[in-house]
């Protein structure tokens, strides 16, 4: 719990800004667009990790790569930072520079690794300052810059700590400070919050979103957590089996998913079909989100039986079963009093068709 407090002030990090105005400005000036052209990756054994893919990350934008494990999102990230070599014919540009064959050490990319990969033989300050030391920055400037970075992530007091004396949340922030200390042109984050427990993750997600906005740096973040992707990404790229399924703002993806996979990955998608659906709704297949369901007394619309009821605080989740065996989920306000075993009528809360188009 002791980590939560400083973490919170990292979100309202503007408190740190007036003291160190340089940290807020410099990276923004160097923000670069990333352009991937027909980028593909085939492993030596012939498996295709990534189908040829075009993707552009705009300068200063945060793009979230979202998908289940094994979908190729981490491979894509490793290709951007140069740790994985793309297949022949692929091309990666940072701004106007072709970096396809540039070694990772020359790309000027800040990376936060999934397990943070902090150097155990160095202190917190040693880790944060390592990139600067490599660049030959003199000791005084380095010290100043390191303390700026540590101030940014609210870890000044821990500068001389060893890495194994830090909590998970602190390590995450050291990794972030280390990555941005080199004033990277591009920041890449690989599942930056996955290693943390749920409660801390919630908090750091908010903090990270604020920090990224403040830095104004071009950023690609890999995650399998849809909420994380939607909160951190200006745009989200949904990936599946080495392919880009859809790219768009979180709202577009949620409201106009291009495929059932996208619809299902960003929130729950319910799909009902059959005679009863045709009879009551005049369509072959009915697709909707759980929160769009209205439950009434039986007699109106489709009838279903309540299989289970979960009270979740702000709302209640019902698992419903139609007479023909089809199932769906409904979210209702916390005051909904239906109990398991009771029968209800299902109807859909109408949404403006321009706002939402769910795939069938």
């Amino acid at each position, binding site marked *: 719990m002791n980590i939560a407090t400083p973490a919170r002030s990292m979100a309202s990090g503007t408190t740190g800004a007036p003291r160190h105005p340089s940290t807020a400005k410099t990276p923004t000036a160097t923000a670069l667009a990333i352009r991937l052209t027909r980028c593909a990756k085939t492993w030596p054994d012939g498996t295709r990790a990534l189908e040829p893919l075009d993707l552009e990350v705009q300068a200063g934008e945060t793009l979230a790569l979202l998908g289940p494990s094994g979908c190729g999102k981490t491979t894509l990230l490793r290709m951007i930072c*140069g740790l994985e070599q793309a297949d022949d014919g692929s091309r990666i540009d940072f701004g106007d520079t072709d970096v396809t064959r540039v070694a990772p050490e020359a*790309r000027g*990319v*800040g990376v936060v*690794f999934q397990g943070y990969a902090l150097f155990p*033989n*160095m202190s917190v300050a040693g880790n944060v300052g*390592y990139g600067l030391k490599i660049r030959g920055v003199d000791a005084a400037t380095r010290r100043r810059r*390191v303390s700026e970075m540590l101030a940014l992530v609210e870890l000044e007091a821990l500068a001389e700590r060893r890495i194994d004396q830090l909590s998970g949340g602190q390590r995450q922030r050291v990794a972030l400070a280390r990555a941005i200390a080199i004033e990277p042109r591009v920041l890449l984050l690989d599942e930056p919050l996955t290693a943390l427990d749920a409660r801390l993750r919630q908090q750091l997600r908010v903090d990270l979103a604020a920090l990224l906005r403040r830095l104004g740096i071009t950023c690609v973040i890999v995650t399998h957590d849809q909420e994380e992707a939607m909160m951190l990404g200006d745009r989200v790229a949904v990936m599946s089996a080495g392919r880009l399924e859809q790219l768009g703002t979180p709202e577009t993806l949620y409201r106009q998913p291009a495929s059932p996979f996208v619809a299902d990955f960003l929130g729950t998608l319910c799909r009902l079909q059959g005679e009863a659906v045709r009879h009551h709704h005049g369509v072959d297949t009915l697709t909707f989100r759980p929160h769009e369901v209205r439950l009434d007394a039986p007699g109106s619309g489709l009838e279903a039986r309540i299989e289970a009821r979960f009270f979740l605080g702000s709302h209640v989740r019902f698992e419903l079963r139609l007479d023909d065996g089809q199932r769906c989920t409904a979210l209702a306000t916390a005051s909904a009093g239906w109990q398991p075993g009771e029968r209800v009528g299902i109807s859909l809360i109408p949404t403006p068709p321009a706002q939402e188009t769910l795939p069938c």
Partner: protein
Amino acid sequence: MTHSRFDTRLGLAVTLAVTAFLIGPVLLSVSAGLTRNYFVGLDSGLTLKWVAQVWELYADTIWRSYAVALITLGVTLAIGVPAAWVLTLYPGRLARLLEELLTLPVAVPGLATALALIVSWGSVGWLRSSVAFIVIGHVLFTLPFMVRAARAGMQGSDLRTLDEAAATLGASHRQRFFDIVVPAARSGIVTGALTVVTLSIGEFNLTWLLHTPLTKTLPVGLADSYASMRLEVASAYTLVFLLMLLPLMIGLQWFAARSTRSGGLSLGAST
């Protein structure tokens, strides 16, 4: 509980018996080296005459052995540690083959290795008659031990990711090797160094065939004294050997234990 106590006692007894069996001859030999006349026994009185004689005749072999061991250590460190890292980075079939090849000189009798060296390099006059020839033999023999130990030190932590992290921060291969890999593998490297020094100082098989009268090492000198001197002199030589070697061994063990315990954590508070 009585059962396990019995086991403990039995274990202790066996250990003591084995130790006595091992150390007995050493003690006898040492006492022989200090006895005026071994065939008469301790009654003939104690003397340091033999020790002084050994020192006079063989002091150079002792210093030479130290020098050979240190140079061998330097060479195995310079070759073995980078080789271990390359083998760790590219764990393919080729790497396995290379490692097997590297291990070959351990399995092949030292005499055979020495003979091969003489056949292939013996005609190069200056090399054949220099200490460097012995160093080459020792490096061949000890290198696999260094590679194995260093590799073991590199396997534990997720060193590849640390290496990648350093790469994205701009560090070259060389910088990453010295800043990240070596500190992480430190305990393994120290173990390897300890093994290499010990093996090199005690090495006889190879050295016996490779040496010239002017490039005798300690164990070769020992054999020489056994063959050509009084038994008392040879025993005194054993004593000198122990006196020279034991402090070194204890010191290295202590150093190894210390650096393993601190685990390379206090190394670089460098900002």
